[in-house]
């Protein structure tokens, strides 16, 4: 059974998921890569955001408002959850956050008055078009990637600032940071809330894209998936995380496609999971920092160094610190290039074909990893 009549849509679909989960992965990187918070309950805030949007839009609120609400609710939930947990050692924090996420999911599953429990609820998409057309997918991609771009911008600004420097200090040695006047607990709580809010935003986009939410879509395996994006791509490197998201999602979608087209002797879902497991282990063994190196804090401080301290041509090792506007332009053109390249590889097909069920199992998230 082929899900999408139009093969291009397979690609657009994959990109959409990539964009959505990239936001969550960036948020996780902010928490772990920059601040050292091992949050393994990330999916809980993603779920809260998805459900908030689901409930808000079905009650008639327009999507932008629902999205804001999702951010607020997820952020708040994150703040509450963080207060008792932030003093924990990293492995205990990891376990506690998983447990927290599971409790939340159980509540959504069993308390049907919230959102119909296991039956889930449908979500109207932000773009009022029928889900079969290319136009729908292009517009969704526009929405998702605009939001992604905005989040990336904010995260870049935050991490390339004195605030971002303090985050890394908290990660490297929280006691020393404390002794040097940084209110460590405050920073951790802020980043936990911010990261959760971004996860909620990502969940909001997810809900309106998939157009349906139920508790089975938010199992811990989703958090692990996001962690793998961060670890593979590069801890503390935002571009790396984007790359990690692309890799993981394309594997995921590729596996589904292979399954639909029945081109493999082995269940591609299993193959995908095994490959990802092996990849993770290889990365941890041979390149534990991830594929891309950690980003340096780029602030005007580097200018002072350039002016006064450059001996031995250290400047060559440092790329010229360009103005923010130029850097944005560069990034935009790089992203456009990447997309264009991939689209060129896919041959275009005649439009039309049988309209298939768009809200069916094709859009569902993997249930087991």
């Amino acid at each position, binding site marked *: 059974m082929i899900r999408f009549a139009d093969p291009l849509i397979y690609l657009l679909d994959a990109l959409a998921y990539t964009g959505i989960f990239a936001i969550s992965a960036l948020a996780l990187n902010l928490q772990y890569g920059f601040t050292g918070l091992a949050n393994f309950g990330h999916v809980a805030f993603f779920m809260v955001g998805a459900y908030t949007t689901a409930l808000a839009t079905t009650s008639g609120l327009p999507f932008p408002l629902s999205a804001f609400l999702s951010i607020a609710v997820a952020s708040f939930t994150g703040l509450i959850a963080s207060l008792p947990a932030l003093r924990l050692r*990293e*492995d205990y924090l*990891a376990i506690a956050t998983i447990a*927290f996420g*599971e*409790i939340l999911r*159980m509540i959504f599953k069993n308390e049907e008055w919230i959102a119909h429990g296991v039956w889930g609820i449908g979500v109207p998409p932000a773009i009022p078009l029928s889900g079969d057309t290319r136009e729908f997918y292009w517009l969704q991609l526009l929405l998702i990637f605009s939001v992604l771009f905005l989040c990336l911008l904010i995260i870049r600004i935050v991490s390339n600032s004195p605030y971002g420097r303090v985050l890394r200090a908290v990660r490297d040695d929280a006691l020393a940071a404390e002794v040097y006047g940084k209110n460590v607990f405050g920073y951790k709580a802020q980043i936990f809330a911010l990261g959760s809010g971004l996860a909620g935003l990502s969940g909001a986009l997810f809900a309106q894209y998939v157009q349906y939410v139920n508790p089975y879509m938010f199992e811990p395996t989703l958090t692990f998936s996001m962690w793998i994006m961060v670890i593979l791509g590069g801890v503390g490197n935002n571009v790396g995380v984007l790359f990690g998201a692309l890799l993981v999602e394309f594997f995921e979608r590729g596996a589904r496609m292979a399954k639909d087209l029945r081109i493999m002797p082995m*269940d591609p879902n299993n193959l995908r999971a095994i490959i990802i497991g*092996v990849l993770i282990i290889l990365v941890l063994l041979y390149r534990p920092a991830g594929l891309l190196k950690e980003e340096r804090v780029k602030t005007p401080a580097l200018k002072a160094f350039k002016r006064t301290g450059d001996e031995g041509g250290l400047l060559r090792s440092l790329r010229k610190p360009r103005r923010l506007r130029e850097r944005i332009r560069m990034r935009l053109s790089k992203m456009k290039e990447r997309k264009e390249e991939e689209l060129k590889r896919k041959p275009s097909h005649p439009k039309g074909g049988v309209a298939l069920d768009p809200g069916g199992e094709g859009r569902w998230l993997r249930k087991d990893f």
Partner: protein
Amino acid sequence: MVNLAQVLFESLVSGSLYLLASVGLSITYGLSKFPNFAHAEFITFGAYIAYFFLVQIKAPAFISFALAFLVSGILGALSYVLLFAPLSKRGSSTIQLMIASIGLGLILRHTCMEIWGGGILSFKIFFPIYRWPPISTSLIWLLIVLDAAITAVILHLFLKKSRLGKAMRATSDNPNLAMASGINVELITVLGWFLSGALAGLGGAFLAAGTALVPLLGWKVLLSAFAVTILGGTGSFYGSIIASYIIGAAENLGIVGLVALNLSADYRTAISFIILIVLLIFRPQGLFKQAGRGD
């Protein structure tokens, strides 16, 4: 009217199951200092091995379960030798080891799913039901309780009386001191991982026999197993034993409370999770360990 005797018996059963599932987790957490998430797959793998021998090869039950114990044990030991030991030597952090264990779990789970399919499998054993009012139970649960008791006794004798066992306790308490005393810490650790896998596998086999075999079998128990491990104190064998029954009782008694409050019985695991979170925040060393173990 609440059948207290039945609830207590169920607590005994749950506790016994958790004992088999958690003692190993506690051992590896204590020895290698990280939470092994592949432990869920050690549990599941044991169940699949038992299934293979019992249902597919039609071997006798005792042999099948014994093989589940052995093969899972080998899996545990290999996991350490091939993965966690090299990572540790390269200076991996706790979180990195944890993520590696998640990756390992992925590989194991999906390999099993590839071999046996992703569906529900049944051991096809008929267990007679016994009724000693007010308690009614099935043979399998009695076997689990019996097995847990035997395991506890054997482990106790091993840890207290044998040289190897004492060496293991020493290594868990203070690895540097143990090494300085001439104990081969590496060997002890491998042995610990073998035991961890073996007990988990055995527990999984029993659990699957009593319920059903699904790929996420181990995951259903894992977080409760963590609750037991933390409650009993990581690395503390006796602590895990007692904690297993406490958690088992908490869940089963909790169900009574849930039903009374008109809440879903699905929340039984939430009880363990809440206990787990509270413990981590207020008393991470558990009930039985002395504080100051370098937390």
